[in-house]
């Protein structure tokens, strides 16, 4: 139902129907914006990239074949926009970002207390992952994408999707272990 409605909207966008773009935006802006914000970490840049994503959807709606879902299509555009933006900014390397320190001697008591909470620690570890690891985790856990869909969005083989997710989870466990939480895996 959702997929059919999205496909209908995209067909109308291909005919330059602005109301249809409003509809598609209303349905997917939160997903796209959050996906981008998690990668680029700055709201202003995430908003700019979100607009670029929907602008590209406006321009290239006619090329949407409906083989994938609209969400997969939009996130695929968003992925490429985010990668370009990160490379352009050179603030962090897409592939080689150093994981942030979990422990920080300067933390105030409240933060120290939060760090003892396992859930908070887990979230801090998620934040400390490299963008590519964080991206695959978000796509699988939050956006509920299948292996094939992640492959399509990120532009990597399905086998790499599986190993990337595996290593992302391993890295998260290592970071937790460093912070004093041994999950017993790997």
């Amino acid at each position, binding site marked *: 139902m959702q997929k059919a409605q999205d496909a209908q909207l995209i067909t109308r966008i291909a005919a330059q129907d602005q109301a249809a773009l409003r509809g598609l935006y209303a349905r997917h*802006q939160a997903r796209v914006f959050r996906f981008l914000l998690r990668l680029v970490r700055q709201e202003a840049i995430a908003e700019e990239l979100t607009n670029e994503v929907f602008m590209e959807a406006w321009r290239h709606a006619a090329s949407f074949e409906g083989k994938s879902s609209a969400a997969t299509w939009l996130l695929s555009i968003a992925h490429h926009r985010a990668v370009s933006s990160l490379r352009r900014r050179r603030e962090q390397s897409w592939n080689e970002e150093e994981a942030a320190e979990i422990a920080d001697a300067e933390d105030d008591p409240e933060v120290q207390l939060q760090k003892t909470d396992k859930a908070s620690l887990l979230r801090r570890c998620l934040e400390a992952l490299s963008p590519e690891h964080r991206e695959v985790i978000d796509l699988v856990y939050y956006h509920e994408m299948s292996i094939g869909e992640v492959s399509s969005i990120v532009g990597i083989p399905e086998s790499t999707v599986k190993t990337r997710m595996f290593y992302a989870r391993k890295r998260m466990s290592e970071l937790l272990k460093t912070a004093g939480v041994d999950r017993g895996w790997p």
Partner: protein
Amino acid sequence: MSEDETTFSEREEIEMLLPWYVGGTLDATDRDRVERYLAHHPEVRRQLDLIREERHETIMANEALPTTPAGALDRLLASLPVDRPHLWRRLLDGEGLRAVALLFSQSAPRSVRFAAYVAAVLLLAQGVAIGAFMLKANDGAYQTAAGRDGSAGGPSFFIAFTDAASSAAVTGLLQDVDARIVDGPKPGGIYRIQLRTGEASPSAEEALRRRLAERRDVVRLVLPAKE
């Protein structure tokens, strides 16, 4: 070492599939493979709890994020290269209504808040539009707010639809009264509709207006639009 150069044990291969198994997005072949393995290696089930924990915190972290700032959609629309004649032709066919209905069809809390914000802005704009309409009607220098389209055909009305009105309900209503949208949406979500049939007497026109107004599930506002 790259992500693809390692040879993995069967257990590791199964572990790789578990995030999708937990999320219910694994295809049938892989799901059967995982379930067969879990049946013989119950100790691996502990992994499922770890994954649920990771999944929960990932969802929480994402849901804590904002959505696009107010005005972002307006900025996007303002930057679009619009093919106006084509767009208007489609709007005049009434297809634009579907997107209006879709805008209010999301159920996520943030989306609802966004929709409520948009609705509030539209209602405010509608008040201004109606006020201007009444002032013009009273000073004898009336001119339709919706423009000059639709001069041929039957009586016309300004109409606004309820937030809950589905596109099917709107289309059905228009078919019931044999009308079409000739202009809009204007500020406040107001459209101008016109009957396809010829002129009607004032009493017949008022009867039709009342008939439209009675459809409160679909119609929020209906006013005669005199030429």
